[in-house]
């Protein structure tokens, strides 16, 4: 009853506003058709629900917390939520803040994330390769701020929503990415002006199924069909594998601790366990990259993923 009232209140606050420009935070979206819809059919977008709104609100609260922490740590914070506009390309945006380090001022974007995503992201490349399209969009957002503010570098501050841990990622201006984004903005503007739409992207579950314009986009969905296999032996092995998985993890953990604790120690008797050890010499060849490249060959190997049908996140289309 209490929570329901909060949820209702959140739901009332969800509104769709007209979109008159290409938002820097959205331009990294993988579907240009979506970005054109954002400009021309924003009033037909299916609004997100209160659950997602709560995540957004939490993100805003965390942003304030991080800015306070940075300030308390002695950093000068400037121009919070400063708006940018690049008329030539119809691009607008606002940066979370700017931060001074030494004599240099850097644009700053704060991103709060789940522990799982937080652990996986340590470089700009990790963002660009991430499976979630909104994470892949982060470098695009920063690149546009850097271009609009005439800066060479900026910072992402990542915040783990579970532990509160923080990490920083420096982003250097990537002109190639910037060029791509400006071309994308030009394409969108051309479609908006002509009242046309680009073709839909190939169906992507991570993009299309969550899209607020799905009902007006009507993309063709091409699924890779599942092969239902009746093989008792394989099924038995999979069940056994699952039951052993927990022990395998524990074994690896304990083995790692023992390896660390027993390094350099020979001839030990602990309870019924007799432990020996010795240093082994190995030979390594430090080959310069250009020479190494001459012997490069390509091979392929099969990557398999085993997931339970109930584990939706791991089931690909």
């Amino acid at each position: 009853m209490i929570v329901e009232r909060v949820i209702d209140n959140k739901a009332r606050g969800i509104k769709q506003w007209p979109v008159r420009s290409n938002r820097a935070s959205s331009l990294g979206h993988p579907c240009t058709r979506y970005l054109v819809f954002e400009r021309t059919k924003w009033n037909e977008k299916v609004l997100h629900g209160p659950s997602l709104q709560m995540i957004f609100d939490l993100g805003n609260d965390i942003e304030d917390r991080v800015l306070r922490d940075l300030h308390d740590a002695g950093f000068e914070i400037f121009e919070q939520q400063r708006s940018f506009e690049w008329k030539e390309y119809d691009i607008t945006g606002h940066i979370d803040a700017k931060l001074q380090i030494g004599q240099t001022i850097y644009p700053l974007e704060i991103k709060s994330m789940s522990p799982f995503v937080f652990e996986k992201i340590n470089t700009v490349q990790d963002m660009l390769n991430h499976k979630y399209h909104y994470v892949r969009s982060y470098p695009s957002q920063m690149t546009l701020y850097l271009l609009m503010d005439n800066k060479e570098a900026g910072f992402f501050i990542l915040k783990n929503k579970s532990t509160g841990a923080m990490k920083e990622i420096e982003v250097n201006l990537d002109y190639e990415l910037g060029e791509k984004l400006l071309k994308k903005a030009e394409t969108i503007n051309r479609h908006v002006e002509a009242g046309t739409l680009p073709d839909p992207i190939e169906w992507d579950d991570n993009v299309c199924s969550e899209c607020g314009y799905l009902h007006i986009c009507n993309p063709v969905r091409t699924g890779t069909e599942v092969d239902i296999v009746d093989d008792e032996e394989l099924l038995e092995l999979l069940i056994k594998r699952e039951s052993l998985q927990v022990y395998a993890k524990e074994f690896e953990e304990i083995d790692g601790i023992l390896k660390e604790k027993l390094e350099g120690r020979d001839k030990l008797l602990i309870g019924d366990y007799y432990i020996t050890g010795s240093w082994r010499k190995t030979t390594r060849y430090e080959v310069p990259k250009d020479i190494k490249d001459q012997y490069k060959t390509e091979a392929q190997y099969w990557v398999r993923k085993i997931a339970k049908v109930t584990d939706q996140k791991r089931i690909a289309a």
Partner: protein
Amino acid sequence: MSDIMDVAPITDVPAIADDQLLVIADQAEKRIEAVKKIKSLVFRVTNFHDWIDQQGKPYLWASGAEKIARLFGISWRIDEPVFESLEGGHYSYTYKGYFTLGGVTIEAVGARSSKDGFFKKYGKETNGERKELPPSEIDKTDVKKAAYTNLIGNGITRLLGIRNLTWEELKEAGITKEKATTVDYGSSKEQRTGCISDAQRKRFYAIAKKAGWSDDEIKDYLKTIGVESSKDIPTDKYEDACKWAETRQRQPGEDD
């Protein structure tokens, strides 16, 4: 006239050979087994959030349809929707789609009408009684999106041969009607409850301006009903707000 009637020659229909019967029986058995297996997978891949109760029958929600489509690798293509105006300002959207799996393609239709109680919006009469708002207050996007979702659900369940599931079957998988009905209805419900729509907001503002209220006076009035902005006017105060907007008394020195 002859008493002899023309009688059409009877063509002998050959009896189905035993071995053919066995093939048919075998195929039927395999089909039953396949449907059983599909149902079992559908139950395991979905949970109570993915089903809602519609007139006593389980109805697959968009989230569930998406999970099933992903698991089986179902493909589809969908035609542009057909909009139809109905009596009393109501309307409907109809989508037609083609769903494919295992080399078989079926056609399915999904439709929703603004007449559906699901989309109705309510305000309050001056006497405090609940009053249904006209169809113009129903969000077209909600109806269109629901028709799309209806199509996907219909297409997937038809393609997999699981159209007529019962709550009893779902109960075995731990999905009960009681749990399912607590599902979050998403933006449609959210918009039905609470504050007035943009159209209502515009109407309120237009009435107030026509009556000659200034922006400051409108703001002052809004404060008396506990809100800062017209977008936050609660649905149950909308009629009162419109009445207030209409009934401005001429101020001393003002023209008629």
